[in-house]
């Protein structure tokens, strides 16, 4: 696949604070790309540089091989859906959507047709004549999306597109955004702090931390093979046990040698063992690698979350098991349990 956007060593500081520190990444044609990270990680700054609202201090951005930074914001083939939606309150829904096309000089029947098509795509035709203040939050979000899509940009930027919606609508719209991206074939770049949102929607995720890309990859790669402790902690839930690398795993003080995998790590090196709660297995009748006592049980519907207190450790080991698990019914707080995991499911991380 070809790179639509090539970002090279992009840097930007606000006063003494670096917002972006030499970020390089490619965004491919027709992909759903997510910039994920905690607030202040630089994802919004990167988005605003792509939109043309901020100028980088150093580095380059090209679109289709052409320098994007040199093009003024109003002439870039890039459109943005604002977190606040930024709908024009004095214009109708149709007026908001047609604004961008009017700026391009689109007129008459073509203008009417394209506005109608954009509104149809987000199921807003019935409210085309309404002003934004008469719409629900979900409808406003769709107007903002239609307005940004109607010009058929090469790249669509979405700044926390679902943040203002309630939970149920947010979950529907994830699927909806994915469908619209697929149907239009436009490259989407979404900025979000919600890891679940990024995992569900994106083809690839760049997880950012303090102005740099911590890891770039598919949702699966980030989840299953986090490169650093930060990634393991930010995406999903992880148990972290500090120790030293051994031939087949990690030696953890008080727990002994535990199975884990890691590439190119010298025995004896200080490492963190990370293991996802759903990869921790409960062993009936004892005999697992780790023994402890249940200190808490949370019922989540289809799953149970167990907190297992380990001898001599403040943080409990968290295990997630299906409610239908054969042992699930008999679990009580204070009960002694034994657990283990496959070496392939536990990762050794040095950073």
């Amino acid at each position, binding site marked *: 696949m070809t790179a639509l956007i090539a970002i090279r060593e992009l840097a930007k500081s606000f006063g003494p604070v670096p917002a972006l520190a030499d970020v390089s990444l490619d965004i491919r044609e027709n992909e759903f790309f997510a910039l994920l990270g905690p607030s202040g990680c630089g994802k919004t700054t990167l988005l605003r540089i792509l939109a043309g609202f901020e100028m980088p201090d150093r580095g380059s951005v090209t679109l289709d091989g052409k320098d994007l930074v040199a093009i003024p914001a109003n002439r870039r083939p890039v459109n943005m859906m604002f977190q606040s939606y930024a709908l024009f309150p*004095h214009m109708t829904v149709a007026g908001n959507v047609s604004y961008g096309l009017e*700026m391009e000089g689109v007129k008459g029947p073509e203008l009417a047709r394209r506005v109608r098509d954009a509104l149809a795509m987000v199921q807003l035709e019935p409210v085309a004549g309404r002003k934004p203040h008469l719409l629900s939050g979900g409808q406003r979000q769709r107007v903002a999306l239609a307005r940004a899509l109607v010009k058929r940009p090469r790249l669509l930027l979405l700044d926390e597109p679902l943040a203002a919606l309630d939970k149920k609508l947010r979950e529907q719209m994830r699927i909806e955004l994915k469908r619209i991206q697929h149907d239009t074939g436009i490259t989407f770049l979404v900025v979000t702090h919600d890891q679940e949102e990024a995992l569900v929607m994106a083809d690839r995720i760049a997880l950012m931390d303090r102005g740099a890309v911590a890891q770039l990859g598919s949702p699966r790669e980030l989840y299953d093979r986090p490169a650093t402790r930060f990634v393991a902690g930010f995406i999903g839930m992880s148990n972290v046990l500090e120790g030293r690398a051994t031939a087949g795993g990690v030696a953890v003080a008080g727990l002994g040698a535990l199975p884990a995998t890691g590439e190119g790590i010298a025995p004896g090196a200080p490492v963190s063992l990370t293991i996802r709660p759903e990869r921790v297995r409960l062993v009936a009748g004892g005999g697992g690698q780790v023994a402890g006592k249940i200190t808490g049980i949370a019922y989540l519907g289809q799953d149970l979350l167990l907190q297992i207190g380990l001898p001599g450790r403040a943080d409990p080991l968290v295990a997630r098991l299906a409610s239908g698990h054969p042992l699930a019914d008999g679990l009580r707080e204070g009960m002694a349990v034994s657990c283990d995991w496959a070496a392939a499911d536990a990762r050794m991380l040095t950073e």
Partner: protein
Amino acid sequence: MTVRAGTIPVAAPADPRARERLLLLAGPLGWIALFLVVPCLLIGIYSLFERGTYGGIEWNFTFENFRRAADPLYFGILIKSLWIAGLATAIALLVGYPAAFLIATSPERWQKLLLVLAVLPFWTNYLIRSYAWIVILNREGAINNLLRGLGLTSEPLPLLYNEFAIVLGLVYAYLPFMILPLYAAISRLGADLIEASTDLGADGWRSFRRIILPLTLPGIAAGSIFVFVYSLGNFITPDLLGGGRTVMVGNLIYDQFLTARDWPFGAALAFILIGIMMGLLTLQAFLINRARRIGTYD
């Protein structure tokens, strides 16, 4: 049968704070009644009777005062006053809009300082400020001396005691009333609307015309009506800077009460002026209400 709360028609419970609210309102309402409504009623009543020989009122009912106000001599002054006030308003808008825009879009820590600077002249006595303009504008004043010193003019320019000086004085005096509502309207606009307009392909001018201007219209209306209403009723500036030759309706009213001792005619002119101002202020309230309803003003 199920009974849901709120569906049973019971007498609304007395708001325990209603009495407090009434007490709190009594002060301001009393003040307005005593010093605004009563004088306006008095003016209205005066305007419908004949003048006394040495001032005061002869209690003979008549519409003569209003008929006389339509006389070309007086009507002309009213039209001229409207023209001068309109001109001052237009210039104040042209000067005040960029100023307000600059203040509203400058860094937050500068905004307060710039606003204080814009309002600073208010803290000086109005008369003293008017006299200062005489010092600046007269034949031997700062501007004429500077122009002659630079060799740009040989004769002093007639800057004072004419319509130009009145308009200048009014613009200067009431500019803050233009800047403040415009500042409020522009800062409410939000940078993201302008960014959205840019993002959709608009250049600066088109963003201004299609987004900024329509959304700051309530501010423009508020500021313009303030400046216009204050200018129309002003009599000190025309007196001092107009040199008594260009008379505005404010001077005419002043003269009727204090020089000509024709209270009823002065009252009729004042009543007409109040009518125009009330009309404009009602229009302003209407425009702002409408903007609030469609969400372009809060």
